[in-house]
Structure formats: structure tokens, C-alpha cells
């Protein structure tokens, strides 16, 4: 009982003393911060990517995204490590329902196509590597649900090599362009077309593949049994 | 050359002191007897005892330390006496007082006590170490008021030399320490009771309680040496008290000075005898506690009185 009271006191104090003053004293900005202003004005001709958020995510703050991909990677590795070896299931799984099987075989290609579309056009339209990867992962989830057997090794290779290529492109940035993860190793191309903004589309699709395969890895690991 | 003369003088003064010490003990024994209503042995009885013990043919010995016990004891007595100037100004009875001051004499008293303790210890008789343990504890207890008295006297006369103290007390009877610093004298006299080992504090050498102890173990000439020492040592202590507190013996004519010394020492001794005759014996812890209570308080008062008034 004492714990309840203490938690109430803690949360009320936290809210009143820290959150409330923060809330009151942070009205909406009326203009961009100088940094955001720079991105808005120079962002387009620096990197040639219409979607500024993608430009920031992939190049300007490329290290963040690299770090974030690593986070997902070690989450997968950690879950795999924690869950330990899979137990072979003795009783066979009961087959998926009729509706699910037909729906999956029909929907799967569309979902995969949609996912690829998202991370191909990351630098033009909203969305990008993460979102595309997740869509692909949900597609693969469909396959898992109807427990079609699919080779896990392919995904393992895909995951490792996409990560490896992502890092090599980044390294190329140092050699060819201004710094690590710089996208100007490829020509910026005409603004707004699909093959523009240097290496951003390439990097983002690699990230998409990486995130997709990692999420598949997580789901597979958490399912627990083969 | 003057060393031989000096030794000669020392021998003379030792003989005088020993004779006077033994007669004093004889007189005291007489008084005790009288007080107890009996005749008691003749006054020269101690001399007879010494002759009798020395004439014994064979003495038993427990080893060389037992042999050295009485030697230490008597050396202690001799040493204490030799460092106290008996008569002011006379060379014969000045002894070796140039060797050291009151501190030396006080520590020489321990010399005898320690030597006897080792000898008795070697004796192998269980009662002797018990007696020694009591003796040492009682000695450490009565030492406190005595040392406090000595300190207050030292403050008063700004010196520890016995000769200078005696010189300062010359002139009229009024400037004896007895009158100028009465508290110190009271403390000292109480501790004298402890030193002499008379009645209230006689647990250490109480023959009745420990029937055998050193007297029996040490027979023959060992005992003789001890008895001579008892005479000499008592005389030395009395002379010390006389010098410190009762104006010492100072007179141009040696014989008259010796007479003054004898009278004064007699009365100092009588004080402890009178007290001894009329008091029962304390238990060991009672006597230690007694010395650490009132006499020490008087001693401290004596110091405070002299130092800050």
C-alpha cells in the first residue's frame, strides 16, 4: 500500500514540478530555428533531395540512422541470444484457415511491391527505408502465419550483406566525397527524379532491406518454435 | 687519597646509623610490649639476634638469585643511607650526598624492595611472592602521597637537594617544613606509616597470617644481613624525613648534632608506633584504597597550596 502512495506522490510531484513548467514555457515556435532554416534553404541544392526529412535522416544525421540500424541489429541478435536454441515441435501445427491461405497468396506480392515502392521513392515522397522495411516485414509475417516454409538463411545473408554494403557506401563517402555517409558519391541528378539526390535512394533502400530482414528476424526469434 | 678517607668516614657513619637503628627497633619492641602489658625483650635484643643468626653453621640456598636477594636488600639500605646527608655541614656525616638529590634516594628505596622481591621469588615458597606482590602494590599506593609531598617541598624550596632543603629550614623552629608546609608533612607522615609497615598497613610482613614466608626460608647469615638492614634502612628513612620536614640535625658540635638527630628520629618513629599500636590491620585492597583516597587528596592540596598561593 505504501508503494502505491509513494508512486502517486512521485508522479504528482514529477508532473507538477517538471512537466508542467516545461509545458507552459514551450509555446509553439513561430519561425524555424536557424539550423532548420539552413536545412530548408540549402537542403535542396546541397543534397538534391526533395524530402528534407529523408535528407536529414540519411545524410546530415547519417550517423544517427547508422546507429539506429545497429540498435535494431543488436536487438535481433540479443533476442536470438536470449531465446536460445529452438525446440523442435513434436505435434505438427494445424494448417492455417482457408481464407488466410488464399488471401495471403493474393496479397503478398502487392505488399512486397508496395514496400519496395516506399523505400525506392524515399527521397521524393514521405516515407522511406524504415517504413518500406516494416511493410515488407509484415508481408513476410503473412507467410509465417500460413507457415509456408521459407529459407531462413537467405534472410540472414540479406541482412548481413545489406548492412555491410551500407557501411561500405558510408566509407566510400570518406574516400570520394566530403565525409563518412556523404551522399554526393553519385551525381545529384535532376531534382525530383527517381535517380537523383546522389546515393540517398541507394542508402535508403539498403536500410529498408536491412530493417525489413531484422524485423523478420525478431518475429522469427520470438515465435519460439520452428 | 681523600677517597680512602671518604670511605673511612662512610664506614663510621654507617656504623653509627646501624647501631642507632637497631637500638631504636629494640626500644620500639619494648614499647609495644609495654603497651600490651608485658615486659618484652631487652632493648639490645636486635644485636643478639644478629649475632645468633650469623653464628648458624649451615644455611639453605635455592640458587644464586636467592643468595643475591639479601645482598640487594642490604645494598639498597646502604645506598639509601649513603646518599642522605645526616648532619648539615659535617664532612663525616655528609655521606655521598653530592651523588644525587631526593629523587635518587626515593628510587634507592625501590632498589632494596626489588632485590628482596627477586631473592624471595627464587625461594620457591609460594607465600613469598604473595607477600612481595602485596608489598609492591602497597608500596605503589603509599608512594603517591609521598611523592606529592616531595613535589610540594621541591616547589616550596625551589630545589630537590636535601642539603639546600635542610639549610632553608635552619633558624627558628617555626621555619621547619612542618610549619611552613603542614599539608605536605601530614601526607608524608601517613605514607611513612605505609613505609614502616606498622600496624594498619602491616599486611605485607604479617607473620601471623603467612606463617612461613621469607623469615624461615632465609635463615642463617642471610637473615642476619636482613636484620642489620632493617635497622639501617629504618634509620635512613627516619633521617630523610627529619631532613625534609623537621629541620634536620645542624649544630657546630658533632655530638650535639648526633643527639638532636637521635631525638628527632625517635619521635618520628614514635609517631608510626603510636598509630600502629592502636589500629587493627587493613586488608590489602583496603590499604591500597586508603592511600589513594585521603592522603593523595591532602598531597594534591599541598601542591596547590604551595604552587598557587
Amino acid at each position, binding site marked *: 500500500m505504501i508503494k502505491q502512495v509513494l508512486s502517486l506522490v512521485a508522479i504528482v510531484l514529477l508532473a507538477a514540478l517538471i512537466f508542467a513548467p516545461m509545458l507552459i514555457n514551450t509555446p509553439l515556435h513561430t519561425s524555424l*530555428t536557424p539550423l532548420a532554416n539552413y536545412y530548408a534553404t540549402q537542403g535542396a541544392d546541397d543534397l538534391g533531395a526533395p524530402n528534407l526529412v529523408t535528407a536529414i535522416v540519411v545524410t546530415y544525421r547519417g550517423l544517427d540512422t547508422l546507429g539506429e540500424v545497429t540498435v535494431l*541489429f543488436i536487438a535481433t541478435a540479443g533476442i536470438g541470444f536470449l531465446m536460445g536454441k529452438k525446440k523442435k515441435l513434436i505435434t505438427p501445427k494445424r494448417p492455417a484457415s482457408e481464407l488466410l491461405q488464399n488471401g495471403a497468396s493474393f496479397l503478398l506480392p502487392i505488399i512486397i511491391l508496395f514496400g519496395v515502392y516506399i523505400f525506392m521513392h524515399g527521397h521524393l515522397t514521405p516515407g522511406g527505408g524504415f517504413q518500406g522495411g516494416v511493410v515488407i516485414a509484415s508481408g513476410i509475417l503473412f507467410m509465417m502465419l500460413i507457415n509456408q516454409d521459407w529459407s531462413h538463411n537467405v534472410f540472414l545473408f540479406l541482412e548481413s550483406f545489406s548492412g555491410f554494403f551500407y557501411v561500405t557506401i558510408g566509407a566510400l563517402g570518406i574516400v570520394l566525397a566530403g565525409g563518412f555517409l556523404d551522399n554526393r558519391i553519385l551525381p545529384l541528378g535532376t531534382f525530383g527524379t527517381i535517380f537523383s539526390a546522389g546515393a540517398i535512394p541507394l542508402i535508403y533502400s539498403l536500410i529498408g532491406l536491412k530493417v525489413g530482414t531484422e524485423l523478420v528476424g525478431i518475429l522469427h526469434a520470438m515465435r519460439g518454435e520452428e | 687519597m681523600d677517597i680512602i678517607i671518604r670511605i673511612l668516614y662512610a664506614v663510621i657513619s654507617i656504623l653509627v646509623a646501624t647501631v642507632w637503628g637497631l637500638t631504636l627497633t629494640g626500644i620500639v619492641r619494648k614499647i609495644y610490649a609495654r603497651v600490651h602489658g608485658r615486659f618484652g625483650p631487652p632493648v639490645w635484643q636486635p644485636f643478639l639476634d644478629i649475632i645468633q643468626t650469623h653464628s648458624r653453621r649451615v644455611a639453605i640456598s635455592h640458587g644464586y638469585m636467592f643468595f643475591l636477594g639479601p645482598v640487594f636488600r642490604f645494598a639498597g639500605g646502604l645506598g639509601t643511607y649513603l646518599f642522605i646527608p645526616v648532619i648539615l655541614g659535617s664532612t663525616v656525616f655528609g655521606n655521598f650526598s653530592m651523588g644525587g638529590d631526593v629523587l635518587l634516594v626515593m628510587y634507592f628505596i625501590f632498589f632494596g624492595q626489588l632485590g628482596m622481591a627477586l631473592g624471595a621469588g627464587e625461594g620457591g615458597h609460594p607465600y613469598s611472592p604473595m607477600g*612481595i606482590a602485596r608489598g609492591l602494590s602497597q608500596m605503589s599506593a603509599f608512594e603517591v602521597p609521598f611523592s606529592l609531598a616531595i613535589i610540594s617541598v621541591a616547589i616550596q624550596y625551589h630545589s630537590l637537594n636535601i642539603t639546600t632543603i635542610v639549610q632553608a629550614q635552619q633558624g627558628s623552629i617555626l621555619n621547619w617544613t612542618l610549619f611552613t608546609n603542614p599539608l605536605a608533612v601530614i601526607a608524608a607522615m601517613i605514607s611513612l606509616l605505609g613505609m614502616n609497615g606498622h600496624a594498619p598497613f602491616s599486611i605485607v610482613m604479617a607473620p601471623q597470617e603467612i606463617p612461613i614466608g621469607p623469615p624461615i626460608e632465609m635463615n642463617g647469615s642471610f637473615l642476619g644481613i636482613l636484620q642489620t638492614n632493617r635497622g639501617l634502612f629504618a634509620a635512613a628513612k627516619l633521617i630523610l624525613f627529619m631532613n625534609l620536614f623537621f629541620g634536620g640535625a645542624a649544630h657546630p658540635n658533632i655530638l650535639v648534632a648526633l643527639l638532636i638527630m637521635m631525638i628527632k628520629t625517635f619521635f618520628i618513629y614514635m609517631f608510626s608506633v603510636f598509630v600502629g599500636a592502636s589500629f587493627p590491620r587493613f586488608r590489602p585492597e583496603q590499604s591500597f584504597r586508603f592511600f589513594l583516597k585521603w592522603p593523595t587528596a591532602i598531597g594534591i592540596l599541598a601542591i596547590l597550596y604551595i604552587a598557587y598561593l
Partner: protein
Amino acid sequence: MVSPIYILILSLAIGFLLSVIDKTNRKFSLTAFYGVLTFNVLVIADWFYRFLFLGVPTLTINTAGFRAPVSINLQLGVQESFVLLFTNLIGLFAAIFLYKKFKESNISSLTLYLILIMGVNGLVMTRDLFNMYVFLEILSISTYSLTSFGKTGKSLSAGFKYMLAGVTASTFFLLGVVFIYYFSGNLNIDFIQASQFTNYGSIALFLLSIAIFIELKPFPANGWALDVYEAVDSGIVSVIAVVNSAAILFLFYKIMPILPERFLNVFGIAGVITFLFSNMLALKQKKAKRLLGYSSIGQVGLLVASLVFTANAPQHLIYLIVGGFFINHLISKAGLFWLSGIVKHENISDWNVLRGNRSLLILFGIFLFALAGIPPFAGFWAKWELVKLLVHSKMLFALSAILLGSLFEIIFLFRWFTLTVKSDIAATIPRWDASKIFSTSFLGVIAIFFAAMIMKVYYGFSLIHILPVLAVLVIDIIDFLPSKVKGLLSLLAVLAYGYYIYPFESNIQLFFGIIFIVGSAVNIISTLNRTGKSEGFYGFLLMMIFSFGNLIIATNYLEFFLTWEFMTISSFLLILRGKQAQKASLMYMIFSTAGAYLMMVGFAFAPQLMGNSPLVISLANVQLPLISIILLSIGFMIKSGSLGVHIWLPEAHAEAEADVSSFISAILLKAGVFGLLLVGISYVKFAPSFDIFYWVGWIGVLTAIVGAFLASFQEDAKRLLAYSSMSQVGYIVAAIAMVSHLGWVSALYLAFNHMMFKSALFIAVAGIYYRTHTRNMYEMGGLIKKMPLSYITVLISIIAVSGVPPLSGFGAKWLIYTAFISNGWYLQAGVLFFASAVSFLYLYRIIHSIFLGQLKYEHQDIKEAPVWFIIPQYIFLGGIMAISAFPNLIIKPLNKIAMHYFGSSIRIDGYSIFSELGHWDGHVVMLVTMGAFIVPLLILLLLVGKTQKVKQFNIVYAAERPESPQTTHVAHNMYAHYRKALGGWGKPRIWNFWHSASEWTHSLADYFRHIYTGNGQTYVLHIILYVVVIYIVMGV
């Protein structure tokens, strides 16, 4: 010249590919794994060398081809490369430590470990706030997953609790970062100024800094961390304790510039409180790893505090303090956790299996001593500078908390050490495997390298100061030789050392030089009686003796304190060799360290010394402030066993080995006396307003009387002699405190005298113990017939101690009483008289119960003490007799020494000495006594003639013949009546006081540690409450 960005790139590339490589063969993935870790270390080491020695400016690496605020930039400077070098090094060696486990375990554990190290590198190098959040997440997630490495049972729940807390902290961090962006407009620390955060803006800074501070496990909110330290595999836990905390600590260091001043002070105080409380709680720990957890949390707290307090100190000081504590924490924590991995036993009492492998035991010692801040390791220097800094910036609360905390640390560390070395082995001895020992010993090498580096570069100490440690190393190398050879070698070494430092500048140095060097040389002879190898004994003995010598020639406070600590640690190790010396040595160490800390603060308060003449001279014209006099005097009095802090003395003497205890009592106590003399020297010219030495005098006098009484009631011979040393040193302390000419002459005279007769007495008792194998006096008796030579030594020594005239003892008594009375200390003189009278009691007791009285049956056939004990005894006896016969031999030089400071108050002509009060002629006294002794001897020899030798029981005793010596030997509880007379005064009040003090601290520790209920949710609640409380305290 590889750019550090490649560390991140390579680790990531290999990390991604590792599972693929592993598909082919585990050997390749392992080589790749270790290859990357070594690559990291090499790159950083190269850069560190470049920054430190070639003065290359700090390197800034821009990513994505744009300048800082637009894109993320990394920075590598001297500080970053220093931290990274050691974190990568420990990462590599922890991996080597875990080689066996990595070979068998799932490949993802290797990937996790690699990415963890990459996360650490990234976190330290990045300058962008959000990037720090990402790297922090990488670091935390890989650590969460690695907690269950090695499949230890309880690690899962520990991992989960760790996650709960870590997640809360990261949320606060994220909120902080975002709101800082809102107020300052950008995310890069170099472009954020504290000014941009007006009154409410600082809440954003608060969120950021409190998140990091929680990650650093502050005191009440760190229950989760302790469970992790206890449950997780020791290799991984060493990485968490060292590498993670180092990275997060550096993160805290990076954001310090933008935090407002009051934040830093509160964090500093919180760090100090963490250090104090976690060390206190560690007192109650029985499990090794949980204890190490508490200790490492404390160390991190100390590091945070030192970071904050040295904010505006000069640069090289910051490097030394923070760098020193960092290295210290790193080495000791990693080392001890790896050792717990090697030992595999949970609670500390089973660590005595380490005795199976000598080199591991030495490593264990090195790590514990480094952690406890014992010289020459880095922690010692850092603590010294930190204390000085805190004293100058008047931060007394923090100072006392830190010192109290380190005292607790000493208590539980040395309890652990003594338990390991002394308790008997119950647990099974594990298999020692190579890779684990290799990495642990590597740490030992770093510790020693850093110790040498700091001493050489920072303080420019020459060979002489490092000699004590060198001696231990040299003796350790030649330890296979038999102990007699080593004994002779060390004797020669001591004499050579004495000759080397001989030309002293002041004769006080000469006097103490004789006591320390010549005294020890003679005492070493008694150690030659040892048989077999006695490993390690002579090493520590030489260390102690050389540190005595160095003490005299020390020129500044640090040198003096360094040598003091060497002396304490070597004497502790010597005492520890005794059979049941576990408790005694622990008590000794605690008291000495408490004294050392007081001295450290005292020296910090003292004004700076000019020039490099030895302390004895330079202190003469230095005005020590009152506070430093008090502290220094207490410190030195603890070492010399004064009343109130004396309870370690009898234990240390009685339990130490026979020949060691004579070193301790005769010579070690004099070090305290020498220290007090130093304080006295400054006291002479600049006596402070409040006369503190008057009270030191009283303490000395009371020590004398209490020591004498306690000595009289002891049954154990060595304990009796210990209390007698305590009482004698009480005399010396009182005499020094008088600060008068005669006082110092008597003090030095007594010091010299005490050294001689106390060594003789102790060596005699050692000889008797060697023969009778017992220390209880009532079990001995009548040995005079069997051991006459020892009897003569003891006889002459007790005469010298008691002060009975002919011997030198009386000189000391005469000088001291004349000094006291002429100085006006009358009552003190009275008490001293009483003390010296009581000393007869215990002197008679020791000689009677050992030599006189009844000889026991089992001692019928024992022989005299071995010759190696007899020689030193009779050398000392020669010394005593020489001084007794010709007192001027020593009185003249002492008079000259004392005249240097005060006008002379005694006149010496021929052999007699005249003071204003009385006079004393040693020569005449000796002659008269000889005469008075020979006369009765001759009389008796003539008269007695043939005496009848009487056998032992041929005595009449209550009318029957006694037959058993036990009943008739008066020795047991000899002064029972005196004890009854003392009544209430006899109770061991001081012992009870200290006992209840330690009891009280332990129960307090027990009370506080119950706040860690073990429930993950409560820990999160603790964190939220902690955030709120710190927020209110900071008054943001």
C-alpha cells in the same frame, strides 16, 4: 595515422558479417572478433601517443561532408583518447578473459560484445546530443542482452531490473535532448551555451544531466545496479563496471560545461554521498561480487565528485586526480571481478583458495591495495591531491565524507584481505586456466607501470623513495634462498642503507637514525634464527626499515606521507604473518589508516614548505595553524598508541610473530614519536593561541598510568610488554609535549633507552617462546635454572625500565621529573610518580612468573634460548650498561640537540649534571652502588661458606610437601587484590567504546541496505523519487 572513424566502420562491418563468417568456421569469426578489438586499441594508442607527446591538436571528424551544427561531428582529444585507450584495452582483455566461453557460446554474443565496444567508442567521441542518445541506447541494449551471458541463474531477473531502470533513464535523456533543442536551436554541444537557457530552460538541462547521473548509479536509486553486479558473469560485469561507467562518466564530463554551477555542486555532493553510503553498505556484504558492486558504485561516485570539485583546478591536477582515480577504479575493479571469475566462489570467506596460486594472491593484493589507495598505486596520489584541493577550497563536508568513506573502504577491503590470507581453506580449489590468468596479470603490470610513471613524471621521485618497494621485489626474486642467507643479505643491505643516508643535516636526524637503523640492524640478528624459507618475510621487513630511514630524510609533506604509508602497509603485512593475527592486523590497519587520513588533512592545512632541506629543519620556521597541529598530533599519537586509540597496540604485539613484535614496539612506536617531535619543532617558535600541547601532555601522562595498570593485569607475556611499551611511550609523548629544553632531552633519552631495553625484553620473551611454545606466564616458571642468560637480560632490563638507580633508567626518571617540576607541570609529575611505582608491579610479575617460582615438569629438559636470540640481547645490554656507567655519553649530545631550540637549563661538569632543582652524578652513584653491593656480598660469601643446595619442593608449606608445580606457582591473576581495589576503574571502557562504535556503524549499514528490496518496480520508483528530490534540492 588511421582516422578514428574507421574504428566505428570496421566494428560495424565485421559486426554485421560475423554471423555469416561464423557459418563457415568459429575459428575465423573468433580471429575477426579479436582482430577488430586489437585494431581499436592500436588506433587509439597511436592517437594517444600523438596527442600526448607530439602535441597534435584535438582532432574533429565531420560526417556527411558538412561542418558541425549541420551534421554530426566526432572529436578525439587527449582526454577522449586517454579514456578510450583504457576502455578498449579492458574490452580486449575482458574478451581474452572470456575466450573459453566465447568459443562455445552463440555467435550473437560475440556480435553483441563487439557492438558494445563500438557503442562505447562512439559515445565518447560524438559531440552531438541525439547521437549520444543513440550510442547510449546501443551500449545499453547490448549490455542488457549480455547480462544473461554464461547462463547464470539469477542474471535474467537482474537483467530485467537493469532494463527497467535503463529505459526510464533513456526516456528522461530523450526528453532532455529534445527540450534542449527547443531552447537552444541545435543539438551539437559545442554550439550550445548555458546562457541560452533562461530560468525555465534549465529544466531541459536538468532532465539531460539527471538521466546521465542515474546511469551512473547514484546512492539511493542504484538497487538495480547491485543485482547486476552480483548475478552477471564476472567477465561481462567487469566490462559493465569499468567500460560502461567510464563511457557514461565521460559523457557527464562532456556536458558539464553547459550545466549551470549549482547543478554541478549538487551532483558533486550527491557523488560524495554515494561514495560514503555505498562504502558503508559494503561493510555488511558477504558475497564477493555484490561487495565489489558496492565498491565500484562508490568509486564512480567519487569520480563524479572529483570531476566536479576539480572543475576550476589547473589542468595537470585534473589529469592527476581524475586520471588517477579512473585508472585506480579501472585496474582494481576489472582485476577483482576477473579474480572472482577465476575463484568461482561466491562469498568472500571462500577466497582463501587463492592461496593455492602464489602469483594470483600477489595480484589480489595489488588490486586491493590499489583500490584502498595504498602507495605507490595511482589512487594514493589522486587522493592526496584531492584532499589538498578540497582543503584549499574549504569544502570540509565533502572532505570529511570522502575520508570517512575511504575508511569504510579500508575496513571491508582489509577484512577481505586478512580473511583470504589467514582463514583456513574450506572450499574446493578451482582449476586455474591460462587465458584468465593472462589478462588479470596484464592488469597487474598496468598498475605497477602507472605507479612508476606517476612517481617519475609527476613528482620526480628518485630511487631512494622507491627503495622500500624495490626491496620487496628484490627479496621476492631471491625468495628461493634459505632464510639465514636472506637474513644476512638484508642485514648488510640495512647497514649499507644506513651508510648511504648517513651524512644527516641535523643531529636529531642522526639520533633517530641510530634508533631506526642501528636498532633494526641489531634486531635483524634475532630473525636469523628462522629456519626454512620464510617467504616474503625479509621483503616486508626491509620495506619497513627503509621506510623508517626515508622518514628521517623526507624533505616535503608528500614524501613524508608516502614513506609513512609504506611503513604502515609493511608493518601490517608483517603483523599479518602471526598465527591468529587476522583480527589484530585488521585493527592495526584501520587505526593507522584513520591516523594517516588525519595526517593527510593536517598536512593539507599546513603552509607550503620552501626549499628541499629535510622536514626537521624546514619545519622550524613554519607556522603550523592550530587545526593542522591538532590533526597531526592525533595522527602521530594514534601511531604511538596513546590513551583512547591504544587498543590496536597489545593485539598487534601479542599476535605478531615473536621476532617481529620487537621491531614493532621498539622501533615502530618511535616513528609516532618522531612525528610528534616534528610538530613540536614548529610549535617551539610559533606556539598557537590555544596551548594544545598542554592537553597532549595530559594524554601522555594518562597513557603512562593506564598502560602501567593494564600491563600489571595481563596473563600473556607479550601483551604485558606491549602495554609496558604503551606506558613508556606515554612518558615520551608527555615529555615532548612539554616543549622545554629538559623535556626534550628526557624524551630523547627515554626514547633511546626504551628502544634498547624493550628490544632486549621482547627478544628474550621470543627466545622463551621459542623454547616453551607458550606465551602465558602462568604456564612457565622456574626457568632461571634452565635459561640463565635470558634471565640476566630480563633482570637488567627490568631494572633499567623501573628506573632503579645504578642503571640508565634512573637517568631518564631524574631528567623527566626535574623537567616536569621545573616546567610547572606538578600534578602531571605526581601521576608519573604513581605510574613508575605501578610499573614495578608488572616488572616483578614478568620476571617472577617466568623465571622464579616453580619449574614445570615439561620444562625440565629445555635448553637456553638459541644463540641468535642471545647475541642481540647482549648487544643491547652492553648499550644499557655503557649509558648507565657513563651517562654523559648520551646526555651531552642530547643537550646539544635540545640547545638548538631552547636555552640550556642544565650544566654539565665532569660526570655530574646540575639542573636548577637538583643534581645527579651518574658516576658516583654507580661507584657507591657497586661498593654497597660488594660489601654485603663479601660478608655473605665469608660467613655462609657452604650452603646446602635445596631441591625444588624441599620446602615446608602448610605442614606438608607440595608436589605439583602448577598449584604452588604464584602467577595467575597475581594482583587480584589490586584489581579489586581499583573497582570500577578497571573496566575496559575504551575497548568497549570502540567495539560499540563499530557495532553501531554495522547496524546502521544493515538498516540502510534494506532499502534495496529486490523488486524492479521499487527501483524505478526510487529513480523517479530521486529525480524529484534532486530537482527540489537544486531549486531549478
